[in-house]
């Protein structure tokens, strides 16, 4: 039987506000446990929440970016459950009147096709603290630094039909929130977390299969693997005559398997009701207009502009606009180099490979956009060959000089175009290889082309790569010519 996969994602995005959503404590990551937890975060008796205005603005920006309706009077609710890292015994969240209504996110797949994924809503809420289960001799530690960090939870419709689509959607959300600057999007620090609702159904069937919820899968790669693993499990289960249970499952990336997290018997009744400590959040149209006017260029618009303005391929433009930091870097390189296509090749090629190799984000690239632009200028004016350029790039990467020019100077890498000097090298190489010269003369057109490469290689070697390949070619043709 042919199966269709149905996926919906719930994405939690930590907002980069200076202070927490309901208190003045800092939201910075990595401080000593409980040093960023005030009386409000500790839920001391008598303390009250005060809403952080910036968190509301950030949520509105997200809503505008996905063309969603902004709820003009959204309401905070209490979601009641007991857990040690939830100090109040309820999470303050939004249930019936979330700040962001239905919206649309466009995704592009690897074959170039596009799809629209519907967002059901996005709401504001507070993060919980962290329970630490190690190093406490059978007890658990509680760190409330994270408690009260503002989140938006973005709930999609079950519109995705493959793990690839789910990853593309997640990447797009990541891209939107980082472009807007409302989140750092750092999945390794939990700034962006993803739960996936996964079900399968026979192709053509209208009603959905029973879904399992995969919790907290915290990298793009694991999202894809977790969904694929879960899909296989469900199909095998059904084909063996079993039934999928509605449950929450945990993805174990070490074993590449999903397993049940908690049983249905313990399912919570969260007893949502409007939080009486907070007034409804009234948003004026003028605030929405101001935020819209101040919105940065978003990934789709930037991608289109890169194609039109710089003549880049859809593929290159897509790669360059996935992350705002990459797009900004590329634009700076293109500007300083004066050649967008070369800039695109270098950013997507050499630079991207080096960043991956050293596991660095583009913001911490040892080679600045200006340095790379300067390097490309020297390629463009034939000061260096492409091959030497790679050497210069490595030298820049290793901080051996401040600029491409400085490195070219200090290492004497400037390309030699002087036909006298190159001519001498050509003569030397031809004299050293009489057999090959004879063979060349007797060979047909096709073979000659290949053999020419041999001579060029030898001459390059003799010039330590600095000879201008154009000059070598024309001299060789001249000297070997009939």
């Amino acid at each position, binding site marked *: 039987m042919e199966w269709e996969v149905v996926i919906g994602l719930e994405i939690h995005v930590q907002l980069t506000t200076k202070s927490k959503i309901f208190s003045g404590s800092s939201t910075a990551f990595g401080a000593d446990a409980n040093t960023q937890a005030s009386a409000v975060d500790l839920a*001391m008796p008598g303390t009250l929440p*005060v809403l952080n205005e910036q968190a509301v603005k950030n949520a509105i920006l997200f809503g505008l970016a996905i063309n969603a309706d902004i709820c003009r009077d959204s309401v905070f609710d*209490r979601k009641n459950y007991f857990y040690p890292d939830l100090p109040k015994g309820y999470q303050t969240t939004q249930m019936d009147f979330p700040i962001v209504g239905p919206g649309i996110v466009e995704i592009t797949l690897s074959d170039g096709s596009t799809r629209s994924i519907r967002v059901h809503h996005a709401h504001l809420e507070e993060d919980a603290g962290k329970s630490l289960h190690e190093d406490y001799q059978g007890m658990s530690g509680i760190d409330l630094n994270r408690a009260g960090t503002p989140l938006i939870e973005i709930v999609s419709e079950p519109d995705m039909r493959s793990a690839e689509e789910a990853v593309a959607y997640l990447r797009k959300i990541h891209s939107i929130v980082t472009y807007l600057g409302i989140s750092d999007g750092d999945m390794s620090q939990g700034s962006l977390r993803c739960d996936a609702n996964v079900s399968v159904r026979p192709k053509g069937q209208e009603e959905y299969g029973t879904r399992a919820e995969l919790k907290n899968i915290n990298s793009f790669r694991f999202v894809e693997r977790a969904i694929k693993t879960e899909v296989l499990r469900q199909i095998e289960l059904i084909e063996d005559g079993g039934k999928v249970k509605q449950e929450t499952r945990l993805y174990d990336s070490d074993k590449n398997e999903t397993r049940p997290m908690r049983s249905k018997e313990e399912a919570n009744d969260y007893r949502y009701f409007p939080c009486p400590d907070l007034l409804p959040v009234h948003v004026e149209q003028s605030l929405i207009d101001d935020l819209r006017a101040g919105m940065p260029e978003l990934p789709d618009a930037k991608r289109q502009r890169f194609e039109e303005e710089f003549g880049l391929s859809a593929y290159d433009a897509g790669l360059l606009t996935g992350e705002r930091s990459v797009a900004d870097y590329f634009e700076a390189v293109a500007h300083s180099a004066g050649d967008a296509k070369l800039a695109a090749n270098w950013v997507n090629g050499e630079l991207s490979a080096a960043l991956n190799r050293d596991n660095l984000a583009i913001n911490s690239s040892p080679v600045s956009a200006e340095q790379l632009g300067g390097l490309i200028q020297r390629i463009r004016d034939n000061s260096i060959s492409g091959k030497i350029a790679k050497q210069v790039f490595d030298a820049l990467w290793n901080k051996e000089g401040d600029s491409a020019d400085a490195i070219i100077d200090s290492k004497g890498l400037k390309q030699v175009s002087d036909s006298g000097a190159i001519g001498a090298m050509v003569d030397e190489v031809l004299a050293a290889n009489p057999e090959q010269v004879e063979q060349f003369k007797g060979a047909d057109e096709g073979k000659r082309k290949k053999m020419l490469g041999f001579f060029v290689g030898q001459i390059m070697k003799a010039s330590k790569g600095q000879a201008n390949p154009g000059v070598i070619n024309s001299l060789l043709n001249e000297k070997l010519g009939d």
Partner: protein
Amino acid sequence: MPNHTIADILRGLEAKTFSSEEITQQYLDAIAKHDGNFNSFITVTPDQALAQARAADTARQNGSAGALCGVPIAHKDIFCTEGVRTSCASKMLDNFIAPYNATVVERLANAGVVTLGKTNLDEFAMGSSNETSFYGAVRNPWNTDCVPGGSSGGSAAAIAAGLAPAATGTDTGGSIRQPAALCGLTGLKPTYGRVSRYGMIAFASSLDQGGPMAKTAEDNALLLQAMAGFDHRDSTSMDLPVPDYRAGLNKDLSGLKIGVPKEYFSDGLDPEIASAIEASLDEYRKMGAEIKSISLPHTHLAVPCYYIIAPAEASANLSRFDGVRYGYRCENPKDLDDLYTRTRAEGFGEEVKRRILIGTYALSSGFYDAYYRKAQQIRRLIKQDFDEAFKSVDIIAGPTTPNPAFALGEKVSDPVTMYLEDIYTIAVNLAGLPAISLPAGFTKGKPIGLQLIGRDFDETTLLAAAHQYQQRSDWHQQAAPGSV
């Protein structure tokens, strides 16, 4: 002996008849000697009080005295006080010392008050008799076999007994007005949002409001002046200017239209209370007021509506008492569930547990629409009743309670009868309105309270109406037989 009003004390301090240290010492001595009869204090803070009094005396000498400089008062033990235990009369917080002051405490301190200590209350302010306190019941100075009312029973008893000239209270369904009525005092529940709730331990967030309790309307005005105003730490406090309440006490009330709801004079009302209220209305007529009969048709729904909304909010508000971060924790929990279950089973008293269960039930999936949502709809109808009434009257008058102080133990085993003691006060909290209770007579030696209800943020008219009545009556000047 210190059977003084705040106004008396301020006059004495200004005239240097006595120092703050002297008057504070007198109250501390009285508490030490007599509070065994009333149990009105949970914690007395003599050292701190005397230090504050000496500082106040210095400030007064230096000419830097705040409006209430050197006046000793007591705080209901529901307001957090930095460095002094805040128990909320619960075993759960018997060991809790807040690292901060409630806004009310801070503002009164800024005005220069001296804090004698923390007064008893019903556990987490849940009760109408002050019998649910972990620290034992409070006795009414007018009749020590009777309750002082609740939940601010300790504050009321302390003032009536002459152990403090005034105190703070909180009112969720009548917890300032009912004990004020039962103890022969004047107590004001301000408009919801008039006084910050920050640092006031929450019972039902949409209903709770802190306010003053004292002998006279004038003292209420002095205290409210210091307590009221916007607080950026409480999102539900209103950013409105605070009028000069003392200056408003003598505002011209001729032509004041007083509405009397016919629903407040139904079967359950003690006939002697009814006639006392009628007599006070006659007095208002003589003062030039116009008395009109009005109707608040949804009055009978107020108690059931309140006993859904208040417990529902309380069930969430009290979830933080889980034994994890502060307060009581059970011995040797074997796992997390055991920690929660035993901490809360052992740390909370019966009435608190009853209300948490009622609230949890009312919010449960499948019951929410029938209970919580319905109660919210009724709440709107109750508010509309008042809105309609205030189109034709300026204030609304009636009894504060259907009965005078009842005997200790009489109603504690019958929660519904106890809940009905708040029948006239509860609707006011549901509507968020200000209301004052003032002494209006006696029945069998027990005080009777007259309740005046005002428009939103019109405490001025209530205080003026109460004050001007007190210029023509002496009910508020009677001393309880048990008083110092």
